């Protein structure tokens, strides 16, 4: 597919276009998880997907994330499953989804008669929501309408010389086509702050980027562990900054247009860095307890699909947005090819160049956007994690292009 080619997307009332039309079943506390899962299992359709929040205590970040996810362009409607006594703002969420023009229903287990009754009512509700979501208008979209995120998981010494720079090439191509790209995990960019700041579109944004990485370093130092797993060391990576530099190469060479926080929608095309480390004192534990917590944040900021690079071999996918798996290590690819969409290890075996693999990833992006399933999607992977965090609003220097005309810097 060439980049100018039009394909059919789902037009949402806010003007955004989706590449999928999923219906979410959202549990609002772990106590409602089983009932929500049973509804999804019995509905038995790939487009009916389970997401949720485990905690009983309210959290502004979790509420905002859930609102952004339930009104994501790949989502056509939602069923909320509440136990009844949890702290999540159930009515606020239903209201926000309803205001977005999507069908939404709420079931409260304590009022519906218990497990069996809620599951039965839930299945009826899903049928109604699906029918309504199926009426979503279609509209032409092109690559320029896409928001693409990237993450690396299970990195090793090959990640930073094959899959990650190949994704960087794909990002550069997408940005040339006026698409929007997001890379993330400031804690995995410790050591890259200066080179990254030089790429910022304004010096003020560069300073914000350096400050965000310094915050990540303080946060992880307090917790006592960097974002570095034992498997990273097995695969030849020795230090946080070595892992960081490899991860950083996913961002390509384009200028950095802004620094966003999870759930912020980029104001226009270009390359954005997501600051995933909470603001303020260290609370609630590790910023992201595993890869899917980061994937969910990228999706909450509007990503239609995710480019996931792996050296050791991750098999995850995600609810809401398809995940394309790019395998960095040829030995891993030989073992786990059934899970890997792209063999970037071919760069090391002499079968392909970085540019070839970058182009192959771009082609995969186009194919999955048009509707072809990625391997993790086909295999039924719909992982989802949302935990507690707290953020403050970003300053105006973080998004130079969104600043009003004549506003002081």
């Amino acid at each position: 597919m060439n980049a100018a080619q039009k394909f059919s997307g789902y037009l949402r009332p806010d003007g955004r276009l989706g590449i999928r039309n999923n219906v979410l079943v959202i549990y609002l506390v772990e106590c409602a998880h089983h009932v929500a899962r049973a509804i999804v299992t019995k509905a038995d359709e790939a487009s009916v997907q389970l997401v949720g929040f485990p905690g009983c205590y309210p959290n502004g970040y979790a509420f905002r994330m859930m609102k952004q996810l339930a009104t994501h362009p790949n989502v056509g409607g939602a069923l909320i499953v509440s136990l009844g006594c949890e702290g999540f703002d159930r009515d606020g969420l239903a209201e926000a989804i309803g205001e977005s023009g999507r069908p939404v229903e709420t079931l409260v287990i304590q009022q519906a008669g218990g497990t069996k009754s809620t599951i039965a009512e839930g299945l009826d509700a899903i049928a109604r929501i699906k029918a309504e979501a199926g009426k979503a208008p279609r509209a032409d979209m092109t690559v320029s309408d896409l928001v693409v995120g990237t993450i690396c998981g299970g990195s090793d010494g090959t990640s930073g010389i094959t899959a990650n720079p190949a994704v960087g090439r794909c990002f550069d191509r997408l940005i040339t086509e006026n698409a929007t790209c997001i890379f993330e995990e400031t804690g995995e960019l410790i050591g890259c702050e200066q080179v990254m700041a030089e790429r910022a579109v304004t010096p003020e944004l560069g300073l914000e980027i350096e400050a965000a990485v310094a915050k990540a370093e303080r946060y992880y130092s307090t917790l006592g562990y960097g974002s570095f797993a034992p498997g990273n060391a097995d695969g030849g990576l020795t230090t946080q900054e070595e892992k960081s530099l490899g991860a950083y190469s996913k961002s390509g060479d384009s200028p950095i247009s802004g620094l966003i926080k999870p759930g912020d929608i980029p104001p226009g095309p270009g390359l954005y860095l997501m600051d995933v480390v909470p603001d303020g004192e260290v609370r609630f534990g590790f910023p992201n307890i595993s890869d899917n917590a980061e994937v969910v944040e990228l999706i909450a900021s509007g990503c239609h699909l995710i480019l996931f690079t792996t050296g050791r071999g991750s098999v995850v996918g995600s609810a809401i947005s398809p995940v394309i798996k790019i395998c960095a290590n040829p030995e891993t690819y030989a073992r786990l090819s059934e899970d890997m969409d792209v063999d970037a290890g071919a760069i090391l075996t002499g079968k392909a160049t970085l540019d070839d693999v970058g182009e192959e990833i771009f082609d995969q992006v186009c194919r999955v956007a048009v509707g072809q399933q990625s391997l993790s999607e086909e295999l039924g992977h719909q992982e989802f994690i949302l935990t507690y965090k707290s953020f403050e609003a970003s300053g105006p220097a973080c998004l130079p292009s969104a600043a009003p005309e004549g506003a002081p810097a």
Partner: protein
Amino acid sequence: MASINPVAGPSAPEQFVLLHKKDNILVCVRPAMAGGTIVLDGNDYLLKQDVALGHKVARYPLATGDKVLRYGISIGSMTAPVEPGEHIHSHNLKSDYIPAHGRDAVRIREIRS
């Protein structure tokens, strides 16, 4: 504009690649066995240990405290001296930011506390 894109491929028959001209390490792209040789700047050196895919070896002699450069950028400081061709990993390289941890991290903390 800063770039750390490496120079690997397309048909690298060699076992080790230099990712940036300033680097003092090379990265293994095909597993190498102890007893083999590694050619560094025209000189042959004996590999004293197996080197797995993705692992690093020294390009030059390095001393304790030397910065290790990958992609032309520091990835930490040496904690022991090495000869050219020697494996560089957690036993002789440490982060200048946050220490890395192994699977035994919790056990070690319990013993210390």
